[in-house]
């Protein structure tokens, strides 16, 4: 038994300071991303979420260039980018891919500039990897308060507009007809999205933040029939995948004789991907269906969700 325990949790896992900071920041980022992600998936804005990740990459690399904490840049430019995307029409279904793509391209270009300048003007070597693919084990505990405050802001702004957000996510026209301030609700959602993308950029990197945003949410929406359950399952999946990824990265140190650990972001994203694949198996879907056997199959899943 003890052998199995030390095989799963290699020595020092629970007492390791980098692991503890990573577990807290990664867990918080995963939960916030899962909450926002459920709405992102329902609103069909995954591409917008990914573009915000690239915008926050530009912010993070810019912050590194001027010597600030990358988290500040991730979130700061993410919020500005969310505002820009809202202004140029990310709400419209038609043409929003174009607006998003334009912003995304410009953001990646800015990241390229900032990362180049960081490399040639300062003594930093790992900036591109840190910004794009994350550096969760090198986060210092001093960053935790900022992470917690930002996550509270994001979750609170979602909670504040819960019902109208749900309605406008499922049917913007119906919401507008019922007098929901769709624009304001959409803006608050974009703010939460920008913050959650910034947090997951810190945890798994700007490019991989999309995985944490939509992976657990999409899996949860497949497995559940109500938004409440989807939120709960998404949070569990996100945090679970993050912690499992951290554990696997920690253990990978012992897999090779050279003690060359493998990147934690890879493991987190791999677990999320595996979870999404498994959730597509007929057995899993049938189980989800049986649980709600009392509810007749809906004409449109989205309308069923709002009724719940």
């Amino acid at each position, binding site marked *: 038994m003890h052998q199995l325990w030390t095989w799963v949790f290699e020595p020092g896992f629970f007492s390791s300071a980098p692991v503890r900071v990573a577990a807290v920041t990664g867990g918080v980022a995963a939960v916030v991303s899962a909450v926002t992600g459920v709405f992102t998936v329902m609103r069909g804005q995954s591409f917008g979420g990914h573009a915000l990740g690239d915008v926050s990459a530009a912010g993070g690399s810019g912050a590194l260039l001027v010597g600030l904490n990358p988290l500040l840049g991730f979130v700061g430019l993410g919020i500005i980018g969310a505002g820009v995307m809202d202004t140029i029409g990310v709400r419209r279904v038609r043409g929003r891919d174009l607006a998003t793509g334009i912003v995304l391209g410009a953001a990646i270009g800015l990241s390229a500039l900032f990362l180049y300048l960081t490399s040639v003007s300062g003594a*930093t070597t790992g900036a*591109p990897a840190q910004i794009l693919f994350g*550096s969760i084990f090198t986060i210092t505990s001093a960053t935790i308060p900022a992470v917690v405050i930002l996550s509270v802001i994001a979750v609170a702004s979602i909670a504040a507009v819960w019902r109208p957000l749900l309605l406008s996510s499922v049917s913007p026209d119906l919401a507008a007809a019922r007098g929901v301030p769709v624009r304001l609700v959409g803006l608050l959602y974009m703010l939460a999205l920008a913050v959650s993308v910034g947090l997951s950029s810190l945890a798994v990197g700007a490019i991989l933040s999309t995985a944490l945003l939509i992976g657990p949410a999409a899996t949860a929406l497949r497995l559940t029939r109500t938004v409440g359950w989807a939120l709960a399952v998404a949070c569990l999946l996100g945090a679970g995948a993050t912690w499992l990824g951290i554990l696997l990265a920690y253990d990978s140190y012992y897999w090779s004789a050279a003690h060359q*650990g493998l990147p934690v972001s890879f493991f987190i994203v791999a677990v999320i991907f595996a979870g999404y694949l498994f959730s597509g198996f007929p057995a899993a879907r049938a189980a989800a269906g049986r649980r709600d056997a009392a509810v007749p199959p809906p004409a449109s899943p989205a309308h069923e969700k709002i009724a719940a």
Partner: protein
Amino acid sequence: MVFTAGRPAARRSPRRRKALVLAGAAAALAVAAAGCGTSATPAASAKSTTVINAIGAENEYANVLAQIGGKYVHVSSILNNPATDPHTYESSPSVAQEVSSAQLIVQNGVGYDTFMNKMESASPNASRKLIVVQHVLGLPDSTANPHLWYDPKTMPAVAKAMAAELSALQPAHKTYFQANLKAFDASLAPLNSAIAQFKAKYPGTTAATTEPVADYLLQAMGIKNLTPFSFQADIMNGVDPSPQDISLENGFFAQHTAKVFAYNQQVVDALTTSIRQAAQRAGIPVVGVYETMPTPGYRYQSWMLAEVHAIQKAVVSKISTQRL
């Protein structure tokens, strides 16, 4: 020509206009191609024959090259900014021009300056002499630590190779180069005796590092580097070290097992900064080490001697020398 034709073309038939645009694009391409062609040919072939154009890819090699070549050599260096990390260097067209006109190039090898190989093969020159320090020392490509210039055995061998190649380029000045080589070797005596004295006087000294930059010097001084190589390689290569290694590294300070912390001033990030602060909090003296020679005010010998003295001061009097 293309531009003057543009305005009246607006009134021509669309097909004519398309043909004109294509012709313009073809002309632009031809000009660009011609431009590439001219820049690739060495422009400095007509330069004075009495001075050898030479390049030291890293400024420490350039410095020694200037000492050996003296008045018969014009040396420039490519990696010489102590505020940036040479591992992330990106070459520019002006540097490529310098490389194409150089008669003698000294470079480190072991993957440290592969950008030199690219520029050299971009402007092939059969008469150009090339000294690769890795090959002078007979080291395999798999050598883990590329910072060869910190090894006290390296420069005497490199200087000898430099004198030989310079003599091949200008046989008339062979005795001059040989005399400079002799003077250079003699000037290394204070460094070698400082290293030997430290080794004899302070055996069993332990150190921690962020990067393998000064590892060869530490080894020569008989200092044991506690930091696992996997951690040093991760920092050098700009990837995240494992949490196990980070905890280990911080433990060397908390438990006071390391007597000195050699900190690479040219590869700095949030993690290395936090590690340096951990060392300072624990009262472990910090010594700044460099990828390239800090300038001005140093030549290779005095730079290395300053590093040895800084390490000695740290071990003996617990005094930090964060910057040389």
